[in-house]
């Protein structure tokens, strides 16, 4: 059901959800409960994966634990743990809202919706490039790690941290070089910086003939 709604509605609904979560506390529990209820209903309708959600939630877990420790140290155990639990609930709900949005909306449709809702073209371009090149850099990182392991690397915490620093430095340099080549490719096809980033094309126009909008973007296995 959620997949069939206009992406702009989904973005607006998610935005309202995030505002409600940020305004919600245990005193205003009805705000948090309302968001949780809507998320749960949409989750159930969309049949989303709990495992995928937990993977995203794990990314924010260090932040939750860090703040929890801070609250315990600054407010004492009695008041601190309540604040920590409250924050954990709010962050978890916020992650759930974003998860429902991103799991039911392909990124191109999301970008189009954000463009139609008036997101400045520079931010739109940044989001589009992050989505396009994030996986390219992750691939490069994995290749470097594999190359390291092929040369009899014995992992330990110190070496892992040191190498991660090197890898990130190399990736920054490569990203800079790639950005120059991408810029060259853009102007080679007639783009001019003063034109700004073109507005994303509506998903209904992008969709291949005979396929449903927002259909699966399955990786190609041949060639």
């Amino acid at each position: 059901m959620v997949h069939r709604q206009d992406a702009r509605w989904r973005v607006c609904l998610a935005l309202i959800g995030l505002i409600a979560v940020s305004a919600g506390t245990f005193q205003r529990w009805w705000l948090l409960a309302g968001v949780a209820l809507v998320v749960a209903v949409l989750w159930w309708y969309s049949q989303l994966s709990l495992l995928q959600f937990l993977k995203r939630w794990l990314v924010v877990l260090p932040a939750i634990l860090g703040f929890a420790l801070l609250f315990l140290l600054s407010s004492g155990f009695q008041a601190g743990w309540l604040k920590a639990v409250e924050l954990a609930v709010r962050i978890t709900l916020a992650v759930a809202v974003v998860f429902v949005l991103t799991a039911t909306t392909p990124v191109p449709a999301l970008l189009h919706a954000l463009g139609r809702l008036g997101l400045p073209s520079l931010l739109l371009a940044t989001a589009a490039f992050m989505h396009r090149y994030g996986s390219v850099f992750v691939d490069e990182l994995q290749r470097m790690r594999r190359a390291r392991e092929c040369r009899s690397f014995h992992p330990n915490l110190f070496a892992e941290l040191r190498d991660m620093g090197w890898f990130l430095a190399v990736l920054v340099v490569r990203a800079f070089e790639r950005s120059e080549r991408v810029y060259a490719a853009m102007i080679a096809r007639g783009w001019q910086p003063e034109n700004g980033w073109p507005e994303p094309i509506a998903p209904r126009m992008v969709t291949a003939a005979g396929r449903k909008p927002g259909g699966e973007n399955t990786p190609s296995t041949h060639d």
Partner: protein
Amino acid sequence: MTRPLALRVSDLTFHYPDGRMALESISFEITEGESVAIIGPNGAGKSTLLLHLNGVLPGRRRYAHSHDFPVPEHQHTDEPRVWVYETPVVEANYPEVRRMVGLLFQDPDDQLFCPTVLEDVAFGPRNLGYSTEEAVRIAREALAAVGLEGYEDRLPQHLSFGERKRVCLAGVLACDPKIVALDEPTSNLDPRARRQFIELIRSLERTTLIATHDLELVLELCERVLVLDHGRLFADGPAEELLGDERLMEKHGLEVPLSLRYGRRVPE
């Protein structure tokens, strides 16, 4: 009837910011409809030369000298060094020149930067001033021309390397350029994808300039070869004659293609 001059390069010199010479006094001409290969070892300046054809490099990089490398005597000038159909490649003419010269980059990830395949192929036509609807129609035709119908809403990162290369070519063709400049079009392709790509290039029917290490491809598609090494043009002549010259090939880090060496060229 004599064919018009498609491309003229005259005394083109370019060096990088550290002073390393990339191109040194390059001059040649290409007539309309010719298919020309630029060959040479790594670092010969092939890609740099292609980037000059539609003004991608000189407009952004007027480097001052540094002293890391000895730089031969030359003058910096704003005078045009490249002409496309007699239009000088200078800043004022960039839109026109970029409409005439289509550039295929070596790494498809550099050229495929839009969220979906169709948006990427439509990028050029939209920059040329077509409406979104018209650009989408042109992009669909270009995708069909490279055999990728049905790929419109695919994400570039989910395509194979060969498919990404073909989408890049569709992006170039969508701009309907008179000259197509291809940088290592068959590198990293498996034999089937390479064969598909060669047939696509053969079907282009435009002035074609190919920078490549794939000398068998050169024999198949190009009647003329330019040999570039250390930024200098060492030879310009018929493909079979130059590629069969063992001394020339070895001197510039190349080798005679096996099909020429053993006379095993498959008749077309």
